[in-house]
C-alpha cells in the first residue's frame, strides 16, 4: 500500500507538527485496517521535510507500534530530492530512542 504525503498535505512542504499529525493519522488508519500490510509513505513531489514533521508522523508511529513493527512495515520512499532526509529521519529515530528526554513522550506514556 502506498500513501502519498503530497496528497494528504496539498503542499510540497512537509514542515509543521500538524502536517506530521495528518500523515500519522492516515498511516495509522491504513496500517490498522490492512492487517499489517507493508505501507510505503511516498514523498514524491515533497520539496522540504523537517524533523518536526517526522517526529509528529513517524515518531508517533514508533510510540504506538514500537521499533520492530515500524522498521518492518512502514517505509518512507521517493525522498531523494529532499535535502538531508535520511539524516533527519535518523534524528527522529534517535529522538524516540532517547524519549526519556522528551516531555511529550513521557506524558504520553504516563497518560
Amino acid at each position, binding site marked *: 500500500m502506498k500513501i502519498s504525503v503530497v496528497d494528504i498535505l496539498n503542499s510540497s512542504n512537509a514542515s509543521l507538527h500538524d502536517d506530521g499529525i495528518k500523515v500519522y493519522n492516515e498511516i495509522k488508519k491504513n496500517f490498522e485496517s490492512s492487517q499489517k500490510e507493508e505501507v510505503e509513505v511516498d514523498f514524491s513531489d515533497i520539496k522540504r521535510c*523537517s524533523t*518536526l514533521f517526522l517526529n509528529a508522523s513517524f*515518531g508517533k508511529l514508533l510510540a504506538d507500534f514500537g521499533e520492530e513493527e515500524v522498521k518492518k512495515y512502514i517505509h518512507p520512499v521517493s525522498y531523494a530530492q529532499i535535502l538531508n532526509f535520511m539524516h533527519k529521519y535518523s534524528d527522529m529515530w534517535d529522538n524516540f530512542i532517547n524519549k526519556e528526554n522528551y516531555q511529550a*513522550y513521557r506524558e504520553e506514556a504516563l497518560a
Partner: protein
Amino acid sequence: MVSIHLGEDSILTDFSGFRQLLKFYETCRNYNNAVVEINLDNVGWVDGNLCAFLGAILYRLNKENQLSFSINAEQVSKKCGILFHNNFIPLDQNLRQYQKKSCIPYKGFLPKQKDEFIDYLENELLVHSAMPRFTEATKEKLIDDLTEVYANIDKHAETDDPFFVCGQHYVRQEKIHFTICDLGVGFYKKIKESQPDKISTSGDSILWAIEGNSTKPDAPGGSGLKNLHKYLDESNGGLQIYTGDAGWCSKTMNAGSIYPNGVTNLRNAYIGSIINLEFNKKTLISGKF
C-alpha cells in the same frame, strides 16, 4: 485628527526602541474612530526591520479602535526614508528609485500561508544580496527553524490575523536584522496552561521557550527558537524576543542584575510576540557557519 509622537529618540532594535513603539501604541489606544497623524518630530531614525512591529500595531489599532493613520511624506523622506525603501509605505511612482538593496521587503502573511512564508524565506530572505552565501545545509536548517517559529504562530497564537516580517541590512555594522511579529495571544497564555507551577510572568515564558521546551503534547518539538538562539549566538549575532510586558535579548543574558537572565520589563504590554534575528555578516562570511 490627533497627532501622536512615534517616539522620543532614534528607534532602534533594542529594549528602548520597543518601549517607544509600545508607548505610541498605548497612546493611540486612547482614541477611537479617529485619524492619527504619526508624528516624527522627535524621531531621527527608525530601524527598517521594526516595520514588522509597526505594521502589526497599526493593523491592530485599525481593527480594534477603528483608527486610520497619516504621516507627513516630507518628514518621512528626511528622517525615515527607509519606510519608503522597504515598501512599508508603498509608492506608485518612481518605485525603482526608492527601493534599496539593503531592505528585505516588509510583508504580511496569514497564519495559513505556510507555503508562501517558506517561499519568502527561501527566495527573499536567505538569498538576499545582503545575506552571506549560506551552505544548502545551513539554509535548510534556518528554514526548518523559522518554519517551526511560524508553526507556533499558526498553532498557538489563537489568531487569524496576519503576521508581519521585515529585514534590514546595516551595512556599516555588518549586521542584518530580521523581525517577525504576530498578533496572537503571546507566549504566556499557552505556556502557563502547560506549566502552571513553573511560569508566573511573560519573562518566565520566554526563558522556558528558548530552553527548547514545547507545549506540543504528542511529539517532541520546540527546538526552533533554541536552535536559532544557538546558531545566532555562536556566530556572534543575537536573538531578541518580546511578548506581554517582557523583552529578552540573548546579548544581555549575562548582564547580571540589570537584566536578570536577559529579561527586562517593557512598561507596557504587547499581546502577541516579536522575534528578532540578528545575523552577524562579518562572522558568517568567514565560512564557519
